[in-house]
């Protein structure tokens, strides 16, 4: 089985901005290992000289005129769903210590 340890799971969790309790870490370590073990079989496939497919039917990028589009409701509407607002801004905890 693909070795993925507790330390690595903690590192990925930090990158993904997720936090887990000990029990969850244990479950995830096991489950991620078994999934990674399964996908290892991709190594059986010879892909030398094969281009990746990021998009299936890549057409040309459609361009448009760079015009200002009016949005109804403006800033007030844009901020409506924000958990915390100060004047015209989204408010977050202090970043600079």
């Amino acid at each position, binding site marked *: 089985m693909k070795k993925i340890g507790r330390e690595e799971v903690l590192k*990925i969790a930090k990158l993904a*901005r997720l936090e887990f309790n000990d029990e969850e870490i244990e479950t995830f370590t096991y489950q991620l290992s078994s999934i990674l073990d399964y996908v290892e079989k991709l190594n059986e496939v010879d892909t030398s000289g094969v281009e990746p497919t990021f998009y299936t039917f890549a057409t040309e990028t459609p361009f448009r005129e760079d015009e200002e589009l009016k949005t109804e409701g403006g800033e007030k509407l844009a901020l409506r*769903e924000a958990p915390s607002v100060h004047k015209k801004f989204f408010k977050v905890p202090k970043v600079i210590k």
Partner: protein
Amino acid sequence: MNEVLKKNLHEIRELLDKKEISSPEILQACLERIEKVEPKLNALITITEDIAGAQANEAQKKIEKGTSPLLGIPITLKDIFVTKDIRTTCGSRMLENYIPQYDGTVVEKVIMSGAVIIGKNNMDEFAMGSSNENSYFGPVRNPWDLERVPGGSSGGSAASVAGLECYASLGTDTGGSVRQPAGFCGVVGLKPTYGRISRYGIIAFASSLDQVGILTRCVKDCAIILEVVAGYDPRDSTSSPIPVPPYSKLLDEGIKGWKIGLPVEFLSEGLEEDVLKGIERAKEVLKEAGAEIVDVSLPHLPYAVSVYYIIAPSEASSNLARYDGVRYGLRVNSSDLIEMYMKTRAQGFGPEVKRRIMLGTYALSAGYYDAYYLKAQKVRTLIKKDFEKAFEKVDIIMGPVSPTTAFKIGEKTSDPLQMYLSDIFTIPVNLAGLGGISVPVGFDRKGLPVGIQFICKPYREDELLRCAYHFEKTNALKIEWPSLEDASPSQK
């Protein structure tokens, strides 16, 4: 049960246009049905009774002067479509109280066509799941057997259509999320070619795979709705500029002389006996309709699930980075910004979503990108080429929808990998970007629906629907929809 509930969408269209019934009357029948069966099915997260009432009244006025395909007809939307001023949860605690400021393109189009939107369907959280057990709002139950799953992630949509709560539902399909639940619930589920329908205003899961799908009780209804929702959208640069043909008017011509390919690998992937019987039955039906069954090969099929479970979580980990508690959705307060992100995400997401974010973050992280993500994208090319080669000899490819019929609630929740493997026949279609449709072929020994899948060449939904239509017609399966009106309450 009110007989009007059992009608198909195109039959309701006729009744409305002939003024034999009014839109508010139909809406009333649907709402009464919802009241009776929702405690058992849990197919809807939000019921939009008031909005639907206004839409039905408005539609009735318009019917006096003219018609349009969906005018006055009650439908539901998977809760992944953002709807202006209607709560849109995506099945997640993260968006439990999120009320979008705008309608997505598809929602605009069905409203323009006069649809009456009666609710937002339950779903696996962020469309991640094959059983609808991953919803923050509880599991959906299969109308054919309340102990069983309806499939997922558009399980609420499939259960709503099979449970006669509405005449059609829109879902999304990233790895089978429309076709598989359609198969489990005995309805028709169409996933068109990638880019056929705009994704603007649909909460993103895996952007190179996501596509809107349509769930109805017959093929013709699917064609009618595809005509309404397909087409280029300047707000989705991956939507296709290829013109939209009048699908519903192209169904009648037969499939005589068509070559239907059956990939040999489809029969070697642990199919249940009754699913295999379904394939045999489908072959007979197609031959009767004048088509010829041809063996084809998709040699890279065994790698499809691996490819999918690298690419989809990778794209998801990136797409779901936006849920940070800053601009909308849940925020868990903290005096520290990073801690606020982490607590918000830890409490806002359920286990399957976290699992996929972790998997995707790992696959994209420094040192692993080439080994996992890039490798998967290359094997994806080979899967796509397999289809291209097969389509050199055949018009349509057929196969199972999933290896089994609907499984029991709780049966696969402890083993994520087993759950993932239930999508083996639908995943390759998304990886190659092709169109696919699931149509009922019969029932298994437990009385559960068995579906059959057809797959088309890129943007040939006209051929796909025509094949499915003639299959359905020749098969002439009589479906007695579950009444669900007995007094026994749901088990859990």
